[in-house]
């Protein structure tokens, strides 16, 4: 691995301190094994998934759920678990990622 252009240990700030907000620079959804699929037709817009998502990966626009940020969703399934829609009309279901 080429490391020539990166700072050496003397130049780096002490103790792994970086600027704030670095998570926006990385797509942390790459290692998801299950993906939540949102079905807009069945969604009752309760926003419980938005509240429960630990990765802020539920898109909301003008007070309404509009989709899922697959760049950052880690596929934990909490949105599916918490979604109160009935079994026959699920708004969120988990599907295995096809690699």
């Amino acid at each position, binding site marked *: *691995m080429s*490391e020539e252009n*990166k*700072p*050496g*240990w003397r130049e*780096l700030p*002490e*103790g*792994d*301190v*970086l*600027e*704030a*907000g*670095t998570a926006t620079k990385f797509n942390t959804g790459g290692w998801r094994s299950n993906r939540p699929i949102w079905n807009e037709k069945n969604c009752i817009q309760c926003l419980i998934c938005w509240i429960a998502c630990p990765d802020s990966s539920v898109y909301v626009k003008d007070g309404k759920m509009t989709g899922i940020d697959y760049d950052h969703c880690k596929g934990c399934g909490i949105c599916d678990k918490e979604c109160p829609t009935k079994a026959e009309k699920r708004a969120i279901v988990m599907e295995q990622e096809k690699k």
Partner: protein
Amino acid sequence: MQIVAKTGNEAMAEAMRQINPDVVAAYPITPATEVVMIFAQYVADGLVDTEYIPVESEHSAMSACVGAAAAGGRVMTGTSSQGLALMYEILPIASALRLPIIMAEVNRALSGPINIHCDHSDTMAARDFGWIQIFSENAQEAYDNMLQAVRIAENTKVNLPTMVTTDGFIISHCMENIKILEDQEVKDFIGEKNAPVSILDTDHPVTIGALDLQDYYFEHKRQVVDAMSKVNPVILEVAEEFAKKTGRKYGLIEEYKLADADFAIVALGSTCGTAKVVIDELRAKGIKAGMLKIRVFRPFPAEIIAEKLSPIPAMAILDRSDSYNGQGGPVFTEIRSALYDKGKKPKMINYIYGLGGRDIMQKDIQSVFNDLKEIDNKLQINYLGVRE
């Protein structure tokens, strides 16, 4: 300066009261319970300004300490044995993030078999986590070391977490007269903490402890190595200032009748007190016995130890824990390594002793000095006080 009767635990709690840290997060464990229990009483009585976090485990205690220290606070905790073991996962995070957390650690055997008494296996197992480790011989040293630890850990060249250890029950629960400073003197000595960054400073937001993979982890670990290499001069500076205030002198090591010794032992902690009595008795009989006491085990003061030990003809290294490596205890292997490049290599044998609180008596230490007279006939690694 006043003289008070305190156990080792009480002495450490008293030091904590005078230090008045911003945050203490701790979980009780024998024989260290009293340190944080007494301190919790100080919090309840309003004697300190500390935010006390009674967590659900030592893993959480050290995690809370890391968070509080990253917020810029002066942070302390106390633990022992299994409690320290439960912190192991977080200990290297504290050092990698350069958080000068102070820990009162009461040395106790690691289970199993389950045991609550003194040996050094818990602290020695934490020796490679980037923490400074300072051993105390008695309650006075425990008190003095706690105060000095704050200055050492928070020195801007250092910024490393520090554990001050006592020996379980032998120091932690035995009462002795100790000299303590006035509260204001302690306040003046330790000064204000000056944290370079704080996660609570929203005007200057930072990320602390981000994922650090192949491209940066190594550099951050190299920084810890560099910081460790600067610790010992700082310890000596702080000790000198402390001596001016108190008259009590500390170094990286303590020599006890060592310079002209024909036979020497090396030990840490409470055993050194017993050994001093034995050495005095042997000296009275004309036997040139001496001791090198290690006060600072991390970073290991290899240079001064090699310098002091290399002229001694025969010596025994006393280890209160074993490494199960077939090469002796951790103190023994460190010292042998320190002496490798010295032209004159003394004869040196190892004694593993006192595991699980097995008493080490004067007669045991006498037997070690006896053995040293015929060091060529001894095994390299010996088990002192075990039933054969």
